[in-house]
């Protein structure tokens, strides 16, 4: 399978503190890759490099190379807006806009210039179906998205990202603020869309990683310890630290 994102020797520092010490990871198209590791290991930081969300934080310095389909995303002159259209993101806290469900999902498209009502209607419906939330919201499309439960809000956020049709979807601990039932619905959603999108998910939950991902990367203190097929990693990890972490000896 072709690699859609490649990264080589990525270092990231906040001021004088280095948070990532040279991470090299490649992601294959239409696979789910999980990034696991204890809190503060740099997995979210790494994820946020992939759509340049770290640019928003002051004093961040990133070196090494990160490429999306062979093109360096940190090269001068790269259109960040375009990059973020191709690499969408779902955050830890559900963050729907304080608008209606319909507006939430249609917003990205609308602001990108899509005006045709039919196209919008259709895309909203498709996206909500892909995110496995359509049945719950179809009669409440014009209700405020904030009036739904946290799990529903999170799936609306997934639909909002899917509506702009990115190639890669980044998820930053999307279920850590949710109850188990909502979490499993989000997982269903991801399984639902796995063949159409490349998914990279940061998670605290090792079971979740083992359930849904094709490959898993284990990060520790800013280093990549191990990266392999999920099955292999969970059954025969190469590194002792991985084995210790998976067995709950630390973290």
């Amino acid at each position, binding site marked *: 399978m072709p690699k859609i994102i490649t990264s080589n020797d990525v270092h990231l520092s906040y001021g004088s503190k280095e948070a990532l010490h040279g991470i090299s990871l490649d992601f294959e198209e239409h696979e789910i890759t999980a990034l696991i590791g204890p809190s503060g290991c740099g997995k979210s930081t790494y994820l946020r490099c992939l759509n340049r969300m770290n640019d928003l934080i002051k004093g961040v310095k990133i070196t090494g190379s990160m490429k999306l389909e062979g093109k360096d995303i940190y090269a001068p002159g790269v259109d960040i807006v375009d990059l973020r*259209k191709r690499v969408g993101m779902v955050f830890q806290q559900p963050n729907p806009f*304080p608008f209606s469900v319909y507006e939430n999902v249609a917003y990205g498209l609308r602001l990108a210039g899509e005006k045709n009502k039919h196209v919008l209607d259709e895309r909203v419906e498709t996206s909500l179906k892909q995110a496995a939330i359509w049945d719950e919201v179809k009669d409440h499309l014009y209700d405020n998205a904030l009036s739904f439960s946290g799990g529903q809000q999170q799936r609306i956020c997934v639909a909002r990202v899917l509506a702009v049709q990115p190639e890669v979807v980044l998820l930053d601990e999307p279920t850590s603020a949710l109850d188990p039932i909502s979490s499993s619905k989000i997982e269903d959603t991801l399984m639902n869309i796995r063949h159409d999108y490349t998914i990279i998910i940061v998670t605290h939950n090792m079971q979740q990683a083992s359930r849904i991902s094709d490959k898993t990367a284990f990060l520790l203190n800013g280093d990549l310890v191990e990266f392999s097929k999920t099955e292999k990693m969970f059954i025969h990890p190469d590194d002792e630290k991985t084995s210790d972490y998976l067995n709950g000896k630390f973290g």
Partner: protein
Amino acid sequence: MNSKTSNNIATGVIYFLVACVLAILVFLLGYILITGIPHVSWHFLTSAAQSFAAGGGIRDQLFNSMYLLVLTLIISFPIALGSGIYLSEYAPENWVTGVIRTAVEVLSSLPSVVVGLFGFLLFVVNFHMGFSILAGAIALTFFNLPLLTRSIEESLQDVSQLQREAGLSLGLSRWKTITGIVLPAALPGILTGIILSAGRVFGEAAALIYTAGQSAPTVNYGDWNPMDSASFLNFMRPAETLAVHIWKVNTEGVTPDAAAISSGASAVLIVVILLFNLLARMLGRWLYKRMTATK
């Protein structure tokens, strides 16, 4: 003293202090309304002021106040919106931004009579504008700008950072994220800020005495050409506002019913400002509901 008694004492003191504030407010409002309302009549609101005879109204002053307010907002809102957006969204945290913030704060604490005299020297005298609504509106802009900028900046800042990240991560440019997501979410707060500052502008007198002037020439309310000197829309004419009228009637009024006019005008002024406040709340709530859907 155990924590329960100290809690009771603290609560008692707080209630007492709140009661003091309320009592002052009720007394002031009550006094102004009770002494003023009996003098307010349709005739009072719709007839011109008299210089010497009794029975004058406040028609022109009331209109001037409104017109001045509108002009002031037209000038100050775009500037305040721009600087509010800059301070909240773009300004880097460095000494330049610090200086701008301090400048805005200092501007807001300038005594309005100083602003008035400054406006008089610069616009009325130096720029040959004469006593005019325009000079008054510009002076009031100085007065209004800091408050408005502040309230816009704060409303924008109140919008969660998560919303901005959501917008950016959808592939919206920074500008579109601000105009399409942050601004609508902040709109109710911005609107409340505008209307509250409008209330202060409406009641302002000191900054206007030397800029918009103290005379209310008779204007023709049928003349819609702002270039005509007799038109009510002409903004180069001197225009005494309601607040200035109250001050003037009290200091140099020679009409036999000066006290009644002053009381009546004060009541009208207070009522209009109260209406502004109510309107601000209603509009803010309504807009928030509109913006956040729930049809």
